[in-house]
């Protein structure tokens, strides 16, 4: 890496920081938990770095470190997205039950999105809506 790359990366860093602030500046507290969990999943992108380290490793120490890093990062990615999806699944499960008021258009969206989310999650949310 040369100095020019550093400046480029730093530019990206500064702009991304602004985007990060801007994008969540008005989040309702009802979504604080899923948002935290969702951002948690996004930093699982560290897996890309872990793969590069393992793939370019030259000595045993680096291979071991890279391997551990890939395992940990995979945990982060999988756990992060699955936990977030489980949390959000519950929000959807409620809406068909409550046709009145603001739930109307959201309910339609939920029904449309449920099959796309995969066959494994759809029965689960139907089950939750039942009792």
């Amino acid at each position: 890496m040369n100095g020019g790359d550093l400046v480029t990366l730093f530019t990206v860093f500064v702009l991304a920081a602004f985007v990060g602030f801007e994008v969540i500046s008005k989040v309702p507290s009802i979504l604080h938990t899923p948002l935290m969990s969702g951002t948690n999943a996004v930093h699982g992108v560290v897996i890309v770095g872990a793969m590069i380290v393992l793939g370019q490793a030259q000595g045993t120490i680096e291979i071991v470190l890279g391997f551990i890093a890939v395992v940990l990062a995979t945990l982060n990615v999988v756990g992060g997205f699955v936990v977030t999806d489980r949390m959000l699944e519950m929000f959807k499960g409620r809406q068909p039950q409550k046709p009145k008021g603001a739930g109307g258009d959201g309910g339609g969206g939920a029904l449309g999105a449920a099959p796309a989310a995969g066959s494994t999650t759809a029965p689960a949310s139907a089950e939750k809506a039942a009792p």
Partner: protein
Amino acid sequence: MSIDTGIHVAYLVASICFVIALKGLSGPKTARGGNLIGAAGMLIAIGMTFATPGLSRFGLMAGAMVIGVAIGFPAARLVKMTAMPQMVAAFNGVGGGAAAIIAVAEFVKASPGSLAVYQVVEVLFGVIVGSVSFAGSIIAFAKLQELMTGRPITYAGQQLLNGLVGAGILGLSVAACVDPHNWLIAVIGILGLLFGVAFVLPIGGADVPVLISLLNSFTGLAVAASGFVLNSVVLVIAGTLVGASGTLLTRMMSAAMGRSLPNILFSAFGSVVTATGGAEGAEGRTVRSASAEDIAVLLAYSQKVIIVPGYGLAVAQAQHTVRELAELLEARGVDVFYAIHPVAGRMPGHMNVLLAEANVPYDELKEMDEANPEFQTADVALVIGANDVVNPAAKNSPGSPIYGMPILAVDEAHNVVFLKRSMRPGFAGIDNELLFDPKTTLLFGDAKDSLTKLVAAVKAL
């Protein structure tokens, strides 16, 4: 288009997916789709990384991923809703650990003396922030999983020790910039772990949600640092996004508690009164407890009932039972809604998630500012497993560690009913004067058992 260009474009697409994901997660209707877009972006990034020229050991990579999926997927899928906070802490910790390891590995790979000072600084930042986040998250996990006490742990000279460890890290970092050695990086990493443990130990009680959010943004920054080390734009973008949004979320949450972030981090919340808190309650002061039937009558003949859920509701998995009770009361013409404190539970929004699972409609969940004026006209405030967030000490006693924290004005309701397991004070270890108030009635027992009894009693009326 060369493969390099293709990879860069793919990383750009992934980065856009992450931004859309965060944007989507900010609104209830778009949240789940946002999360899926984020996951898609992640798959794109991982898939294209396999195509990176010069990489080898794909078998090992796949093996490591299989191990990660085999552990992570069942853990995330099977964990109970109440254990979500500690799962988030754990998955956050491993991310920080991975970022620290990447920085160490890149340092080890570089031949001695070949790194410029700014590259050493990048490595150091990744190692320090990553290891602090890793160790801190593990301690937060242990506290929430009750592997260790959830109370703040303090000892003489704590601040001094933390300061010394911090100074040690800084001193060695300067030394590493001047004369980089592998052992220096290793020692700095170990000190980072030590600092992570030391700085989380004195944080407990209602401050844990803020802590988890802060550690989340730390991991984001550590990932961004590893992006600088590896010269990877996608790591810098995603890590910085998380770092920035996590910082903002942390600030929103500490603002909701009426405290500054440094105050939360360094003031050992609740530690001062932990020693006396239990004793005061046991000094023969009387509390009024009642049977489920009595309380059912009180509730059923009220005009307005406000339910205040807390961590006890989550522990008892009583969210469905409380909805059943609320619906029974509504069927009798009682006006029922839920008052949600921003930090009730162990994570921000914890109660919202829990009640959403039980199909409680949105419009029955009121946030603190909206709910507080309603208490004056409420016949009953039904407090289920909450304590610190309704403790009037936050308003009335300047000496209390929670003084200044905005609370739900439960004390203004005509009657207060507490469903509690025991007289033990809340997570923060502070006694609650409201329990001894003449207008307060207690129903002891597990929240779910008590609510089931209440449901049966209301039905029998």
